[in-house]
């Protein structure tokens, strides 16, 4: 069966769910961050698929922007994690509970 839009969307949805599960279940800040990247990539796949099957390039421009923003976001986020680690000597979410009610 020739893969159509639906196939790509299912793959994208499953990848997104994998990333979401990682964010919810993993306990290491850096791994959580990587799972966020996985979710962004899944969204990118959906956008490219829509772009291809709707004969419209705007989706690809959007993906281009998402990749740029993700790169900036990773740089800032990792700097935050490093600053946090310097202060607390941990990158484990269960040790970072000072904002917990």
């Amino acid at each position: 069966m020739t893969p159509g839009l639906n196939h790509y969307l299912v793959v994208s949805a499953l990848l997104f769910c994998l990333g979401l599960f990682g964010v919810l279940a993993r306990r290491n800040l850096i791994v959580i961050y990587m799972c966020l990247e996985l979710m962004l990539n899944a969204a990118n796949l959906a956008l490219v698929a829509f772009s291809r099957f709707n004969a419209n390039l705007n989706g690809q421009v959007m993906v281009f922007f998402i990749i740029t923003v993700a790169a900036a976001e990773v740089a800032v986020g990792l700097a935050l994690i490093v600053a946090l680690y310097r202060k607390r000597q941990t990158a484990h979410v269960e040790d970072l509970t000072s904002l917990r009610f």
Partner: protein
Amino acid sequence: MPAFTDLLFYAFAGLALLFGFLCVANPFSRSPVTSAMFLVLTIIALAGLFILLHAFFLAAVQILVYAGAVMVLFLFVIMLLDLKEEDRRKMRGFTIGAGALAVVAIAGILIRAVIAAQPLAQGILVEGETKPLGKLLFTQYLLPFEVMSLLLLVAMVGVILLSKKEIK
């Protein structure tokens, strides 16, 4: 007899999902380095899917920016922080259960939406070649493009500030 590109789609999709799973919940290793390596493989498989969707420029950018720059940054930070002693902590049953519940619910909604959607009238398929993409980027999307450069500058300044020794 399915065409070769169809088989490639299934191969890349399967690989992306397999590597994604190994990145998120590797049964053999809790180490962040393993996760990062499998994330690189997932990204490469996704670039293959982009090529199958004729988005050649984005596939190249995906490999260069994600697998190249972003993942190197991740690995640098992992090695900087030396997270070895945290490997042994176990995932708790409650978090896995709650996470799985939320994920299954969202997966159900997404897959249901995809199945219920009206199939698209198969029109012209767009070719994601570099030339039309660049034209669009420098005409219709010129302002967002410039704003993006400003954003990168802001991120750069922010990172330098954040990584100073003393945060006042």
